[in-house]
């Protein structure tokens, strides 16, 4: 009994002593921190998932306040969080427009010609080790072994017929797939953009004809007929200027290769 009482007494006294010492130390060594950092941290989802690419929510909040990170990187929180963070940082919410991943390739199995029969590991990088090109004849084509699928934390990427497809309802626009793609063809586009050419080939028309039955051959038809001058053929590839596009879907209708995709309202 005496030991217990003594223990409580000694530990309590020491605890109180050090508590006082720490209170004193935290006053004299006080560091002013940016109050916005705590506010940003509070607004984040707080899952510490690392989806933003920073070490935890605290790391991301610090980077946002320093101006090193954009406001819309919190993938777990989504658009609502991005808006809140943008408000704290006093930035317009335009930067926080929802982006989604897009794989500009239609060269699915049977459509894109093969260079060789590949039976190695199911990994895009591994498939590219063979001469720096994949097993598909088109050097711009999606290889379809799903490095992006593995990188996606939100189950939004899937391989369909040998080409990666994005399930827009799941995609939060974190860009993990963009970094994972060894061909560097996956890109982020605004979710509101409904017209996109689904090809990345910069090869000349005849070569594309040989490589793939659907690839963009740079025929310029879309460029000529676009009422808003929003679609331009550059490097033998139709490219949409998102700012100019009025989403009239005319190009998708006239494309002889049916390569310009129109995402319906459901995405």
């Amino acid at each position, binding site marked *: 009994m005496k030991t217990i009482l003594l223990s409580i007494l*000694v530990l309590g006294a*020491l605890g109180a002593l*050090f508590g006082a010492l720490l209170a004193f130390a935290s006053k004299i060594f006080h560091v002013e921190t940016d109050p916005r950092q705590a506010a940003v941290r509070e607004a984040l989802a707080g899952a510490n998932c690392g989806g933003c690419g920073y070490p935890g929510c605290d790391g991301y909040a610090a980077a946002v306040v320093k101006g090193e990170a954009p406001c819309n990187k919190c993938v777990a929180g989504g658009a609502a969080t991005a808006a809140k963070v943008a408000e704290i940082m006093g930035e317009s919410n335009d930067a926080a427009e929802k982006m989604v991943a897009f794989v500009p390739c239609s060269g699915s199995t049977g459509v894109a010609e093969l260079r060789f029969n590949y039976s190695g590991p199911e990994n895009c990088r591994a498939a590219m080790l063979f001469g720096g090109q994949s097993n598909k004849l088109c050097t711009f084509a999606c290889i379809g072994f799903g490095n992006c699928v593995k990188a996606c934390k939100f189950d939004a990427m899937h391989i369909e017929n040998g080409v990666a497809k994005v399930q827009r309802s799941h995609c939060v626009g974190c860009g993990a797939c963009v970094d994972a793609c060894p061909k560097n063809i996956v890109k982020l586009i605004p979710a509101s953009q409904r017209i996109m050419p689904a090809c990345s080939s910069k090869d000349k028309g005849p070569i594309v004809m040989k490589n793939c039955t659907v690839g963009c051959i740079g025929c310029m038809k879309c460029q000529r007929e676009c009422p808003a001058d929003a679609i331009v053929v550059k490097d033998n590839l139709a490219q949409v200027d998102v700012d100019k596009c009025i989403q009239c879907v005319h190009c998708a209708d006239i494309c002889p290769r049916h390569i310009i995709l129109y995402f319906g309202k459901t995405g």
Partner: protein
Amino acid sequence: MRIQDQFRDGLITNNPITVQQIGMCATMAITTSLFNGVGMGLSVLIILTCCNVVVSAVRKIIPNEIRLAIFVVIIAGFVTIVDLLLKAYIPALSESLGVFIPLIVVNCIIIGRAEAFSQKNDVKASFFDGVFQGLGYTMILVIMCVIRELLGSGRFGGGLIDVAKGFRFTLDGTGGGIQIFPSDFGASILTLPFGGFLTLGVVIATMQYFLKKSAKQKKAAEEAAAEAARLAAEQEED
């Protein structure tokens, strides 16, 4: 215990890293630049000395059953103070060492010295034990930092020495150090955690080799002296 003995114990014969082999986690993690090594070493030295003094001062009133809880309270208190101090005055060091400063709370060196030394010795001896053990720790950290930095990236004194505008010391972590050879030729594996294990192994092995050697020489000298004394005694008898 004499101060000279304590000095030799702390730095060589009972060095916390190479002989007692405690507190290795931080040793391998942070010894990538001289700035980190010196910073970490001195932080541990300060905390160790303070904790040793306090533990030694209260050693007679703490019940044996809860001594570990009390040690942890004392250590955590001083670690938090040093953490706040670094954040306030050397923010670059605080950022670069990151979680390893708060982790000193569970560093075996501090609690090990409290358990093995300062709870049995008076305040003065405990104070010097803290200083010398801390110096021994700092010494090994500096050796490892110099090896890893030099062989890994061809530099000396990264973060601490700035030669961009004449030779000067900095504490804001921006100093690039002295480039001895181009970093392309460095064995960059030494800057990785693997290099930490490797360097630590080599440092411990070297130290142990010389310790063993000097112990052997000492023993041989003692034996020779005893033999001479015996011979002298025999001659006297004759």
